[in-house]
Each structure stands twice: as C-alpha cells, then as structure tokens.
C-alpha cells in the first residue's frame, strides 16, 4: 500500500540544536499513527515540516508516493494535509463561528454571520463534535471545547492526512475517548491520522502504529500490537536520558542509607495539603489532594508530562490559585496564590521552566543568586554577593566564565544548577522541585539528588516532581504516581519499575 504521507531523511537544525537528524516516517491510509518522544525530541518540528510550516534542511516529503514541496502552510493544506499545532490557534476575542471561518482555508472572502453559524452546525454534525454555542466568545470556553474547535477547523478542508500535536493534553478521559472514536471513523473511511501524545495508555487503546523519536532521531516504528507499554515506556525514558544511561550503582545514593525519615515523630508537619486542588480552567482536574510531609520527609511525585503534577507544584508555590488548604510550617497560604507568602513561610521552588521562571536571563549570576533578598543595608554588598555566588557556583559545579556572566549565557543544565543553588542555599523548610535534574548529565544529576537529600537531612521537607521512572527510586523516598490529576497510593521506592511504568501510562498496576 502506498503511504499517504512519507517523510524521508528529514534533518533540521536550530542554531546549536540539531532538532532532527535524518528522520523518516511513513503514514499509511486508514491508520492512526502515534508519534511519541520525550520533550524536545523533535515531534512538533517534524510535523511542522510535514505541514509546510517549516522548511527542512534536508530530506524529502512524498504524498501518495510522489515528491512534493511546500513553500507555505497553504500548499500543504491544498495537498490534503492539515495540522492542529500544539499551541492555541484560536482568536480568543472572536466567536466560535468566526474562528471556524478563520481556520477554513476555503472560506469565501465575504461571509455573513448566518453562513458562519451554519458552518459550525455542519461541522459539529459531520464530525460529531460538540462545538458549543456558535456565537460564544472563544476565550470564555473550556479548553476541551477549544480543542474540539481547532480539530473541527483542521477537518474543514477535508484533509486526507490529519496531524494532531498533543490534542489530548487538555482533554478529559471522556473527551479523549470521543476524540479517538471520531478519529477511528476517519481512519476507517481511509483517512490517515498522525497523533502526538505523551500518554501511552491512549496509544495502546486507540492507535494502530507508533513511531518513537528520541533526541531528533527515530528510534522505533512498529504496530502497537507488536509491543508493550513497558517496552515503549522504557525506550521513552532511555531517550530522555540518552543512550549513555547506565545503572547508577557507583553513586552513593543507596536508597536505604539515605531514607530521610528520622523526623517522623515531629509534631508539626512542614507541608500539609488538605482537600487541595489547583484552580485552572482546564480539563485535567486535579482531584482533592491531601498529603502531609514532616520535617526531613521527602515525597516523589512521578508523572508523565501533562498529567497535572506540575500544576500541583506551582499551586503550592503560590503561582496558581487553588481550593482547599496548604500549610507550610503551620502557616496556611492564601488560596489566591501568593509566592511571597510561600517563601515567607520557608518555601523554596524550582520551576520546570527555568528560562521563563527560574532565572533573569539578562542579569548576572551574582545578581540572580542574590534574589529575592539581595544583601546590603543601603547599597548592594557586591563583595558578599560575589563571595556567595563563588561558593555556590563552585559547590554546585556550575560551569561559567565568572560570577558576573549573564545567566542567559549558560547552557541549560548549568542554568538548572544555578536555580537549584539559589533555592537550596536558602535553607528552606519546604522544597518543591519540578524536574530538578532534567537536562543534567549523570554526575550532576546525582549531585543534585544528593543536595536535595542533604536539605532533607537538615530538616526540610521536599516534594520532587519527576517524569523519570528510573530516577524516582534513587531518592529512596516514598513515591506517588500522578495520572490525570489523580495521585496513587504511596508506593515504596522498591516498587518494581514495571509497575511504576504501568501506573504512569495510566494502566492498572
């Protein structure tokens, strides 16, 4: 059978980053093809090239066996390819009807509101999508509806190949099921579907074949029925860490030795969540979370991206609104979200997005490390700042020209170490860290874990969010797996990796 869409030897470079190296992918008519890979693996880049949004540096695109070249997104649509990209594509200030007209490449120059409303009804019926009130302003709609509008928009041109970049990240289980049902219908009718997702469960429930990308290369393509979630989960995590990943037996992070729960009989918990749920207009509802960490206690939340662990962490740190109760060292934090109150109560936070939220890129390392309470009564105590920075940079092994280098000039891993250095140097009562070792080499990652265990040993409670199945047990602390906003029961660090993988993938343990 001739593939509907075939990509051959696609390479793409962004400055320093080789986003794709000679990736090939072929999509057959009638199939739902899942595209998997860690963050930054190159999935979005690949589909952007397929859809004419980006030009590849090298490689070929074939439609039904004949080579094509797209100068513009429009060309790809004309060739029967439609892409629903990862980021929001809608005009918030316009109505559903207007947005669908905007997304329809064949919409006429002039169109009456009635005609636009008619399109909404037509699309909703044809694709069995609930698109809501045609006159509603889009920015007032729930994300699930917005997602469906985007999908309906992509479908208006009757594309033979439909590419969806992480469409389910914001959908509820029911919505996801409905989406898969409608995709299945398309496939059965001979259409081809490419679907990017981080969720193995839905891949195994709904896709026909899958392709796995890792660090810009395709690692595996196979029928879903020929593999298991465990195998793919393992490959995914290996991809995230690189092929060099070995068992880290040589490090002194033996779980049992460092299990930091000596302080279990302390009366006052350092971090306590009661009936807690972040407030976000989104489909992934975090269920009411209750947990309590005593001084010195560490809890690892293990979750694939997009399951809400990040949002839980952000809400605790005061960056999102929440309902329920959060207490840090006995002080309850305002539910409106107040990072200052969190900090004042002794909280420290390592955000997932270090470029946007971790560091001020155009300030020096010294200055970054001195925030939020720079030393000095009247004037900045520059020498204290320098000394402080010097110590931290040395002890965290940050590779930088000097302490006056701009934070933005450091590599990602080194930036991460700077953030950790700043947060840990504050001797926090509670540390909340999201993906603290992401992007770090093995030695540095081990050092970071050691640091976290050290703060715990000195009496801090820590909540670490990670997506790394193999790393999670290395903390030697209890684990809880987060899937779709739901926390599993506490698990021992000795829980078999296979069990954790199945839980993370949303399959029953």
């Amino acid at each position, binding site marked *: 059978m001739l593939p509907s869409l075939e990509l051959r030897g696609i390479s793409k470079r962004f400055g320093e980053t080789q986003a794709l190296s000679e990736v090939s992918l072929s999509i057959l008519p009638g199939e739902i093809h899942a595209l998997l890979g860690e963050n930054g693996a190159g999935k979005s880049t690949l589909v952007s090239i397929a859809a004419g949004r980006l030009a590849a540096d090298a490689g070929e695109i074939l439609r039904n066996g004949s080579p094509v070249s797209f100068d513009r997104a429009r060309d790809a649509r004309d060739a029967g390819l439609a892409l629903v990209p990862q980021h929001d594509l809608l005009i918030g200030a316009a109505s559903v009807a207007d947005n669908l007209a905007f997304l329809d490449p064949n919409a006429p120059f002039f169109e009456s509101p009635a005609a636009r409303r008619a399109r909404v009804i037509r699309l909703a019926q044809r694709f069995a999508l609930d698109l809501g009130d045609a006159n509603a302003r889009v920015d007032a709609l729930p994300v699930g509806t917005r997602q469906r509008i985007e999908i309906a928009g992509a479908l208006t041109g009757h594309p033979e190949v439909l590419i969806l970049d992480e469409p389910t990240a914001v959908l509820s289980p029911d919505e996801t099921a409905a989406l898969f049902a409608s995709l299945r219908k398309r496939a059965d009718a001979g259409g081809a579907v490419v679907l990017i997702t981080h969720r193995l469960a839905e891949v195994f429930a709904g896709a026909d074949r899958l392709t796995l990308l890792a660090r810009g290369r395709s690692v595996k393509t196979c029928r879903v029925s020929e593999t298991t979630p465990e195998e793919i989960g393992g490959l995914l995590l290996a991809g995230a860490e690189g092929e060099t990943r070995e068992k880290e037996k040589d490090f002194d992070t033996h779980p049992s030795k460092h299990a930091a729960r000596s302080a279990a009989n302390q009366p006052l918990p350092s971090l306590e969540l009661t009936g807690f749920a972040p407030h976000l207009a989104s489909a992934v509802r975090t269920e009411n979370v209750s947990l309590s960490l005593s001084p010195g206690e560490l809890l690892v939340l293990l979750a694939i991206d997009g399951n809400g662990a990040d949002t839980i962490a952000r809400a605790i740190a005061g960056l999102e609104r929440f309902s329920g109760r959060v207490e840090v060292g006995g002080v309850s934090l305002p539910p409106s979200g107040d990072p200052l109150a969190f900090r004042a109560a002794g909280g420290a*936070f390592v955000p997932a997005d270090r470029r946007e939220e971790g560091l001020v890129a155009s300030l020096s390392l010294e200055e970054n490390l001195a925030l*939020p309470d720079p030393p000095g009564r009247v004037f900045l105590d520059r020498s204290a700042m320098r000394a402080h920075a010097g110590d931290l940079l040395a002890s965290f092994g940050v590779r930088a020209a000097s302490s006056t280098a701009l934070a933005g000039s450091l590599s990602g891993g080194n930036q991460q170490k700077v953030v950790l250095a700043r947060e840990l140097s504050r001797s926090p009562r509670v540390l909340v860290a999201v993906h603290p070792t992401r992007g770090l080499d093995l030695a540095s990652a081990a050092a970071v874990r050691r640091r976290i265990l050290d703060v715990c040993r000195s009496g801090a409670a820590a909540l670490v969010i990670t997506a790394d199945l193999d790393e999670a047990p290395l903390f030697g602390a209890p684990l809880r797996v987060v899937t779709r906003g739901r926390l599993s029961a506490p698990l021992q660090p000795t829980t078999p990796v296979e069990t954790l993988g199945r839980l993370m993938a949303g399959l029953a343990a």
Partner: protein
Amino acid sequence: MTQESAARRFVVAAIALAAAAAALVGLTLLAGASPIDALHALAEGSVGSRAALGETLARATALVLTAIAASLAFRAGVLNIGLEGQFLAGAVAAAAVGPLLSGAPFVARAGLLVASALAGALWVLPAAYLEARRGVPEVLSTILLNLIAAAAVSGLVRGALQDPRGDYPQSRALPDAVRLAPLVSGSRATAAIVAAIALALLVTLVVEATPLGLKLRATGLAPAAARAIGLPGARLRLLAFSASGALAGLAGGLEVLAVTGRLYDPFSAGAGYTGIAAALLGGSHPLAAAASAMLFAALGAGSSAMQRDTGVPGALATIVPGVLVLTVLAARARLTQKRA
C-alpha cells in the same frame, strides 16, 4: 526598554547624532540659510558662553528629571507615557501652594517641592489602579491622563488658581524671595539643575547599586521569573510608577520655582515627551538618560539661537529631536536583527 551594553548604546547614539546633524544641515539649506552659520549659532547658543551654558542648564532641569523618571519606570517594566501629565500636576501643585506658603524661603521651597512631588505621584494612581485591578495597559491610561492634565491647567489658570490682580490667565506669582535665584549673575542656571543632577545620580545609585534597585530591574526584565522567585512584582511596579510620577511632578514644581514663577496655559512644551525620548536615547540608564536630556536641552537652546541669528523657522527645534529618536529606533532594530 531594557538595558543594553555600553558599546551598543554608543554606536546607536553616534548614528542618531549623525542623522540629526544631517537633517539639520538639510533643513537649514532648504530654509535658505547657511548651514555653517546655523551650526555655529547652535554651538554658540548652547555652550558657547557662560550665559548660553546657563540657558542650556536652565532648560535641562525639567528634562533631566523627566528623563530619569522615564528611565526608572522603564527599568521596572512600567511604560509610563504620562510624564507630561505628572509634570503638569507638579506644576499645578507648586502654583497652588507656592503663594500660600509663608516663613523662611527654605521652608516654603521645601513645602512647594514636596507638594509637587506628591501631586506627580498621585497623578499616576488612576493608571496604576487600572493596570493592577483591571489589566488596562498603562500606556493608554497615561495618555488620557496627559489630556486631562492639560485641560485642567487651562481651566485652573482661568478659575481657582487665577491671579486676582489683572485679568490674565495665569496663576499668582511666587514671591521673589521664594523663587530660586541664579547661581551666578547673568545666567539663568539655578540650584535646581544641581538638584536634578544629584537626583540623577541618586536614582542611578538606587537602580544600579541597591537591593531595591536589583529587585526593580529583575521585575522589569523578567516579570514571570521575578514572581516565581518571590519578588513582590505588583508592589515594585507601583513603587517605580509612583516614584517616576513624583520625579516628573518635582520637575514641574522646580520649573515653577526656578524658571517661570507661575503657572501659564499652555505651560509645557512637551517636557514629559522629551524626557521619554531622552530616556530612550540613554537606553533607560538614568545617568545616560540625564546626559541625553542635557543634549536635548542644548539642542533647544542652540536652535533658539539659530532662529535668532539666522532666521530659520523654529520648527527645526521640534524636527531634530524627533529625527534623533526615530534613528535610534531604526538603528537599534537593525542591530538587533543582525544579531538574531
């Protein structure tokens, strides 16, 4: 809006100055005057004599203050386009309380300046409130507040603040004892310029060398990071916004105290807008902005001399700073694109 490297700032300023000079020569030729005479008059009239230097300094007072006010706001990420209105508010306060204050001149001056700084700070409050509570961009609200302030000046000099002696639309004059005397006779430069430069240094120190300044800069450069790190972003913005308003208000107060002695309508020839341009030229660094303000003041005094000596139209004095700013923007855009 953000800081830029000294070298780049220098290149941009050099290009802009060259463009402004070219515009000047071209327009002078168009007006039928000799560019050599014009440039000579420009130099003579701005820095050529003690008196000329005095005029430049007298003009510079308000501009230096509005320029550092703009820099301070921009560095904290606040786009305060309302300096003109805050300047007028300060002048109104000075004209309102000035004639009422009695006692030693020193006390009266202090009272007047405090009142004008307060008025300037108060005039940002509607914009700050709308920004914080309603998310209204401060750019829009401050433009509106400029309009309202200008209308208020017009109304006040014909109403509540009108000088009861004579029917003139002007406020009562400050007593001569209260007004600032020139530093040296035959020159118009008063202690106000010294105060303005001192404030420029002070603001530079605060922004560059104090813990507060570091926090302000961090908030301006990366609001999301500043929030996550635990800086009180909203409070810092409000602080910078109102401090910026206070400086602009002070500029208005000093203008009344040192230069005009009363409120007229119209009172300002765009000191607030020129301050923004100067801050831009100085890359939002307070000292560099103050230096740019001096440059604009010299240009103003010099182009008056040009008009007096060579008869070229006064409009030149408006065009040249505009060209200067536009070239800076274009040069900066090109440099940025090249690096990207």
